[in-house]
């Protein structure tokens, strides 16, 4: 018997272009194939992102079935919330549309407005109640140093948002590169106390940008079923 439906999504926050390891676009594509949507937020403050960075950000999001936003660091909190919420709606709407195509031969956009608004209500309620596993993949390469406080507070703000939902959620963070030369490091909240945002405060940004390997670690973490409380039987939407 299938359990409660569950959403899995990754959110990549970066200000540059990957320069080490596997191609992140390929990794995002793999993740999509396993039911994990990847969205990207690019930060533009010092122009480090560049045209190449923008293109890569867009390509990762396209391949990962998520959305892409390019913003300034001060708009990060608002954007993180918005992207998380809209990616959930997007994924849920895809599921609903797949069902609708089977029934009416078209998706929700083809419905008359009144009916479409009912579908939107269902999608909204599901996005409030569905189990959510969220992996934040955060670039802490040298150029991010000036933005770390903004990133930390945006994550804290996201935690407030997730805590207010009716549905349960779990969140982990992958930062890259690691301080001891690893390509990426996994952070989880230990026990019930504290906020995961605070791990960001203790990091020293340095090194290059292995975006692909970091996404691989995040996807691997999600696929590892031990990452979710055993009390929940779930299937991936």
């Amino acid at each position: 018997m299938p359990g409660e439906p569950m959403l899995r999504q990754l959110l990549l926050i970066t200000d540059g272009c990957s320069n080490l390891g596997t191609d992140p676009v390929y990794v995002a594509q793999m993740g999509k194939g396993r039911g994990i949507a990847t969205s990207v937020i690019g930060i533009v403050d010092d122009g480090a992102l560049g045209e190449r960075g923008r293109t890569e950000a867009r390509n990762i999001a396209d391949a990962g079935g998520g959305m892409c936003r390019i913003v300034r660091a001060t708009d990060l909190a608002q954007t993180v919330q918005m992207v998380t919420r809209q990616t959930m709606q997007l994924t849920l709407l895809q599921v609903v549309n797949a069902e609708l195509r089977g029934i009416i031969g078209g998706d929700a956009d083809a419905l008359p407005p009144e009916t479409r608004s009912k579908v939107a209500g269902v999608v909204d309620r599901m996005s409030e109640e569905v189990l959510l596993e969220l992996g934040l993949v955060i670039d802490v390469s040298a150029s991010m140093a000036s933005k770390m406080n903004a990133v930390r507070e945006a994550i804290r703000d996201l935690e407030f948002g997730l805590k207010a939902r009716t549905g349960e959620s779990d969140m982990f963070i992958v930062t890259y590169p690691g301080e001891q030369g690893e390509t990426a490091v996994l952070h989880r909240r230990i026990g019930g106390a504290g906020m995961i945002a605070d791990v960001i405060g203790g990091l020293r940004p340095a090194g290059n940008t292995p975006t692909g390997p970091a996404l691989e670690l995040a996807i691997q973490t999600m696929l590892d079923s031990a990452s979710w409380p055993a009390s929940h039987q779930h299937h991936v939407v």
Partner: protein
Amino acid sequence: MPIGVRFAGKWRGGSYVALRLVGSGANGSVYLAERGGERVAVKVADNPTALSLEYDRLLRFAQDGGGRAIGPRCIELDDTVIGGVKRFFLAMEYIDGMPLDAFIRLRGPEWIAVCLVNMLDLLELLHSRGYIFGDVKPANILVQNDAGDVRLVDFGGVAPVGQSVKEFTEAYDRAWWAFGSRRADVRYDLTACALLGLQLAAPLCKADLERLSCLRPVDRAAWLRKHAARAAATGDGPIAEVVAVMDGEVRDLDEFRRRLSRTAGQRRQVSADGMARLGRRGGGREGRRRRRRAWDRTDWGLLAAVAVFAATLVTVLWFGV
């Protein structure tokens, strides 16, 4: 959407001409449009989900059971093709009003309490049906007339009590300032109104907000309390009432409204007395004090310029002659 473009809804057949862009936000742009000789507001978006939800909320909550208008009357939800692109739109009554912050700048801080009281009345109607407004901010509150009557616009943030607040603006968000959670309850709106009242009386500048966005919420709260203390010392407006909400002393909308009404009443009394004295003696202290502007950098600059000019004049006269 280009101004002047004519478009018709696919399902309902309503025909519109876009007249002017009124505003745009994360969820779309709002246009003033004409529909069969009537002026209407049309919100255009690419994302049909958010727009459909707003339509649903508007339909259910824009008017209360007794026919009192809380928000704009809902006209229709439809879609159309403009310039080869499919667009979803929501048509509603056009409310000819001024955003709350502009109104206060124009009319003075003594109107903050009056407008907040009017706003609390509307929120209470929404709360009595188990929903909160959520995205309280000046742009979403339009003042309709000289009496300070307000209407709420943008029902996209309206949320049932018990669920999470999904649309909010950081500067007026309870969780952002560490005054509570982001779960929808009546006190979420109450706190947002208090934060709004404070920022109408003593606005935060963009640089303040950008700096605060990098601080922990508790540090933001500490900063805000200092800001409120400064405002209470120099400014006008319902600062004491706002601080009482932040301190958890005011527990519901009704209590906040009572305190605000009292202040609004006193203020009116004071200015009436002032005017009376003004009439009797040709200018009392009370009447003049209210008109005085804070001494700012421009004034110092002017003073310096006058001093330099005077010094030059004296020097020229002394040595020149």
